[in-house]
């Protein structure tokens, strides 16, 4: 996963609960709670999207909020490509991420294709 790789490349410890867990501060990722809140609101609670957007702008700036929105849009694309085409990881990649996917519960997804 690219998040782990980009943290490791900078000798930063990363708690991967930041990806699936409750909103939390992270030493490795600035403004993680505000970024995660924007994503969560866009998926689960559209009524709170304006406040999540404002909180991110307040913590960063408009350009950063817009780029975060663009990344969400991009992964609305990538997830549908992967799942619509049945894309799976090569065996060696699956092996290297087995501990990670196990600890994050990713193997429980219907889309987990070996």
């Amino acid at each position: 996963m690219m998040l782990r790789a980009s943290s490791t490349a900078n000798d930063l410890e990363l708690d991967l609960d930041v990806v699936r867990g409750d909103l939390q501060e992270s030493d490795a990722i600035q403004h993680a709670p505000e970024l995660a809140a924007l994503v969560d609101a866009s998926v689960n609670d559209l009524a709170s999207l304006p406040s999540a957007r404002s909180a991110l702008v307040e913590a960063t700036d408009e350009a950063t909020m817009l780029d975060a929105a663009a990344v969400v849009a991009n992964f609305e694309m990538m997830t549908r490509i992967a799942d619509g085409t049945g894309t799976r990881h090569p065996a060696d990649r699956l092996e290297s991420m087995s501990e990670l996917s196990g600890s994050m519960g990713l193997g429980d997804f219907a889309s987990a294709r070996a």
Partner: protein
Amino acid sequence: MTKTPTSLIESSHEATDLHIRSDLTAAHAHVWEKLAAPGTWWNGSERLAVAEVVRVALGDFDPVPPWDSASKSGRLPNDSVISSELQDAVYRLAVHAGTLTEGWYQKMRDATGVTPQQWVEIIEVTISVASVLRFAQLAGIDSPDFPEPLQGHPTRQTQPSKPAKHHWVPVVHLEDSTPELAPFYDGLPALAPVIRALSSVPAAMDTLFTLGDAQYIPMREMVDLNWTRGTLSRRQIELVAGRLSAHRECFY
């Protein structure tokens, strides 16, 4: 007067105090220009009919569950130029992509008669609409209208795609690259399976690269684990990407 696809996107992006990057506006305009034009395997009206299902699906606050038919629920157009079976498949791709299985894919193809390449183009239309409309929603700007369908026939351009080990759909392997795929394949020693997934339809690859470069990271910068536009750091980008993918229950 009918607005051009580009002007529909520009109107949406400019009707706000926000300063949206010009390359992002251009990328969305590019896929909007293609949205209702004849594609590789579907004509403009058919592509627009797929887009309409995606728009309804994305705006559905109480979605039809994956095991039910969206077309029978009465929330999809009943005068569509695509079949109700295909509408159901598109709706499920748009809302419940994480539930798709290879068995579903085979049954869907039997029920709809679509070829793998036609399905890849349907995915292309879906990702175009999902990208543009979801960005608008996240940014808090007006969603652009759809363009008018353009007359004309699909190109039916074939590629030397072959069955693939890492996909349900056939792909063009790097060693079989064609002039149409050269802009996406040349100079790369390898290509992630998810990028290769659309290679049987180069126009879909164009959509993927155009959107990915502007919305995420330019493909050729992907190896730079500290790449940034000066706003989000690479780790912030990947946090957003990972959290959204987890919400969508996308294992890949």
